[in-house]
């Protein structure tokens, strides 16, 4: 097969559109890292679990897809609070490995629950109605309607989160806790409440990402958990730990990069190049694209 420049650009376009899911997950990781300077390894698992619950509840009550896209994020948020309580709230913050290991445990637990409940087989996720059929041609390049939908919903969600962080009382408190926790406490802010809210919001974003990923792929399966965890983390690191803007841009670029190497090197080798990209960043630009160099004492 001969790869033309049109193919290359087309695959990058598809990848960037799908990359908005990585961006969402990256923003979720970043929100939690910003709040506690800790990684929540169970994050992508709870996102997929949220999407499963949304799908399941809608199926049982025979509600439509719109409700799934509402319930998925909601349950994702609730699982987020649960993970916070189990893995973060009561483990002393100076125990850096404690919460990390606990959240890895939660990742496996959630994964196991999904596998047991579904007998390990993937479920069909409803297509996005008119969006699935739509296909826009711009010159020689095509834009898949469902991926456009994914991008728009992701961008709307991420914009809302940024507005919440910079325009609301919760956002003020969350930024205060993230930058200087003791001073925030002295101003009367309860950091546990703020962190629980942050885990909820991150969980909502994750549940949304889970639904979008499942809708774009057409099925939902526990096999989505590992790639979302890894690629969300890579987006977080490449963007610069703690930078929301960085996670968004890195997520989109990562999608494009991955799709390009899928085209050029095939599905078996694709992830090797993704990890190579991570490796290059860790060696040459360990603070990522927008990493903060301000020292937080």
């Amino acid at each position: 097969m001969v790869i033309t420049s049109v193919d290359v650009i087309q695959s990058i376009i598809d990848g960037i559109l799908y990359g908005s899911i990585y961006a969402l997950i990256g923003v979720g990781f970043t929100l939690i890292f910003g709040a506690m300077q800790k990684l929540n390894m169970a994050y992508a698992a709870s996102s997929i679990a949220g999407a499963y619950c949304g799908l399941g509840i809608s199926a049982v009550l025979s509600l439509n897809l719109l409700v799934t896209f509402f319930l998925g994020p909601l349950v994702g948020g609730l699982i987020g609070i649960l993970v916070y309580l189990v893995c973060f709230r009561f483990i002393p913050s100076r125990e850096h490995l404690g919460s990390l290991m606990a959240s890895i445990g939660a990742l496996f637990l959630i994964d196991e629950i999904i596998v047991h409940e579904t007998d390990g087989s993937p479920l069909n996720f409803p297509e996005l109605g008119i969006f699935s059929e739509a296909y826009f041609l711009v010159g020689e390049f095509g834009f898949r309607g469902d991926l456009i939908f994914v991008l728009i919903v992701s961008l709307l969600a991420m914009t809302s989160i940024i507005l919440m962080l910079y325009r609301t009382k919760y956002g003020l408190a969350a930024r205060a806790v993230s930058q200087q926790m003791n001073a925030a406490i002295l101003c009367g802010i309860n950091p546990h409440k703020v962190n629980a809210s942050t885990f909820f919001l991150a969980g909502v974003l994750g549940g949304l990402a889970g639904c979008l990923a499942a809708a774009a792929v057409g099925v939902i399966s526990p096999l989505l958990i590992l790639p979302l965890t890894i690629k969300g983390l890579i987006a977080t690191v490449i963007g610069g730990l703690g930078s929301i803007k960085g996670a968004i841009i890195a997520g989109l670029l990562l999608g494009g990069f991955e799709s390009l190497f899928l085209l050029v090197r095939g599905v078996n080798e694709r992830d090797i190049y993704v990890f190579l990209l991570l490796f290059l960043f860790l060696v040459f630009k360990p603070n990522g694209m927008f990493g903060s160099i301000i020292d937080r004492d």
Partner: protein
Amino acid sequence: MLRIDKLNFSYGAIKALTDVSLMAATGSVTCILGPNGAGKTTLLQTVAGLLKPSAGSIQFDGENIISLSPSALVKKGIALVPENRLIFPEMTVRENLIVGAYLRLNKMQKSDFKFEIDKIYARFPILDKRSDQLGGTLSGGEQQMLAIGRALMSGPQFLLMDEPSLGLAPKIIDEIFEIIKELKQDGLSVLLVEQNAVKSLKIADYFFLLDQGQVSYQGGADDLENDAHIRKAYLGEKS
């Protein structure tokens, strides 16, 4: 009035405060002097609710406040200006002040709010100039003023200050002490922790010396100045 009775606190096996009793009268500046590691910061953090003492009581206007959370204490009118200032580095000066008023944000009208911030800016004109600058870019003295301004935004009656002169140039230290004097004139009570005994003598009404977690001396400014031992140990005078 703030009244501390037989307060004890330990960091694990290390005893930081042993039966500390002291009083800080309303409308006055009370100063706690002592060397590094004497337990001064621990004492203030206990009063502000950041640390829970193992024994003893803390009363504020006759009410036992020892089990209250930091936010409940802020509501009661007790605010701590922490050691090393701890300002929010990636927020603007204005945002730092807004966080200071966090517990009052729902109750305040926009106009009240502007009035409160303008009051801080009138007291610290340099903060007005730096209003949109990030807190992390301020100089040490400006950060100290911001930390005091932020604490004032909670509308306190009792201000706890932890070494406000730490690491500042002599001229700035004079300004900070001048501000403490003004705060007292405005009716605020201040409990001040300091190592700078010479400057503190000029503004404080009453002193406690803290040494290895215990109160080793107390008295008014005159008593302190006339005590030969104290002069030698804390005012750097040669015998």
